[in-house]
């Protein structure tokens, strides 16, 4: 059984369809990159996966014991966050929220989960630092740690390297790759098609409808890729 199965979904804003006839599935251990131009429906698809938005038709099913609130989501940063007074610890801890249920406080299990995750991503030394004093790359790593606290299975990353310099970008991709090798399924939305084909096992290419879905090797042979990557068939 797949972790996520999208069956023929269409997504729309007030009858303005932005994405139609999309079917794909994500299995445990996959590394799926969703690529496409601006306005191709990538962000809308993310909203649907997080159930912020209901599909107009079709269905999204979660399998393998994955619950919808157990997706580790790494959103794009908002302007308001850049000067937010919060310690790294507070931000990462808030990732454990989905395990609290009705309890108003964090349990010791949740605290040790946050602790482990911080150590895993080399953030333990920074835990008392303020989020707003960190560099862009460190901030992104903190948000990745928070997403990891929320999941054991699936990370959903929305443009995780946007605005990072090349060195930090490379480091971020390596980290995501390592997480994938440890068995965490990755779904990443990206503009960076070169890195997408380098790291991902599967590609979903959108342009208001699916242009391609399949393994990266097949994608490189397809027409969609040639156009997007700027290959010899440029027109």
């Amino acid at each position, binding site marked *: 059984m797949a972790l996520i199965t999208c069956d023929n979904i269409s997504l729309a804003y007030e009858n303005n369809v932005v994405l139609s006839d999309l079917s794909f599935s994500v299995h445990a251990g996959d590394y799926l990159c969703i690529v496409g131009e601006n306005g191709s429906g990538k962000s809308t698809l993310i909203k649907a996966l*997080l159930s*912020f938005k209901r599909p107009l038709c079709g269905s999204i099913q979660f399998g393998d014991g994955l619950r*919808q*609130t157990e*997706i580790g*989501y790494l*959103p794009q940063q*908002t302007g*308001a*966050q850049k000067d*937010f*007074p*919060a*310690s790294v*610890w*507070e*931000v990462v*801890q*808030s*990732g454990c*929220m*989905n395990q*609290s249920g009705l309890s*108003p*406080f*964090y349990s010791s299990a949740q605290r040790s989960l946050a602790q482990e995750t911080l150590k895993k991503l080399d953030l333990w030394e920074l835990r*008392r*630092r*303020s989020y*707003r*004093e960190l560099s862009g790359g460190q901030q992104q790593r903190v948000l990745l740690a*928070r*997403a990891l606290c*929320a999941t054991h299975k699936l990370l959903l990353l929305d443009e995780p390297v946007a605005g990072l310099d090349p060195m930090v970008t490379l480091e971020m991709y390596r980290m995501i790759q390592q997480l994938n090798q440890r068995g965490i399924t990755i779904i990443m939305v990206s503009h960076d098609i070169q890195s997408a084909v380098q790291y991902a096992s599967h590609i979903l290419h959108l342009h208001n409808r699916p242009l391609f879905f399949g393994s990266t090797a097949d994608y490189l042979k397809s027409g969609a890729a040639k156009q997007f990557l700027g290959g010899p068939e440029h027109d």
Partner: protein
Amino acid sequence: MIDVLVQMLSYPFLIRAIVVGTLVSLCASLLGVSLVLKRYSMIGDGLSHVGFGALAIATAVNAAPLAVAIPVVVAAAFLLLRLSENSKIKGDAAIALISTGALAIGVMAVSLSTGMNIDVYNYMFGSILAISQEDVWLSVILSIVVLALYVIFYHKIFAITFDENFARATGVKAGWYNMLIALLTAVTIVLGMRLMGALLISSLVIFPALTSMRIFKSFRSVVTCSAFLSVFCFLIGILISYAWSTPAGASVVCVNIAAFFAFWSASLLFSRKKK
């Protein structure tokens, strides 16, 4: 100094004003941290103008002021949240629209009924004589509710303030908590505005949070500092107001300004030392 304090506490209306003012300052500062960080600072200002309109109309038709003002301001708070979330009129414009509109309606109501008089002045800039025993009970209940909800939902409030989308993804009902914050803000503002004045009450929401953020760097320390600072500034302000016979609202705001600059200079000093 002690004489002045003893003298102050011998007036029942002053004790009422101090109790209500302290509790309202406390609630406003707690809610203020979230509002300021979510870029909703102007909501407090907008709501106080709506409160002015509602009070003016209540006086014109001889209704109980709080019974009219609280529901109207709560409704306005929900409307403002809705508007800033999903509509073509953006948040700041919506607030400006509603606040000036309500102010105009209030002025019309006053001038058609009693005429522009001392009441209008009191609504605008506050009066410590306006606080009744009923207000004292309401503010005690309100502050217990705000404090309890704040402690119970503290982590969720943090999550929603920091990143609403992530919080929603982990199953927190963000819309519900936003409503709750708007509701509590509305009640706090109506309770505080007759003491502080419609034009000045929003300073209680904004100043303590912004001042604390100059120095403190984690959410918990900012919240704690805001709460203490807000109560402290209010008490100093009311003391100044009594000693020099200045309006209570304006005196409290002036103390808040002083605190802001003190914290700001301290933060500049700290950062210079680090370098």
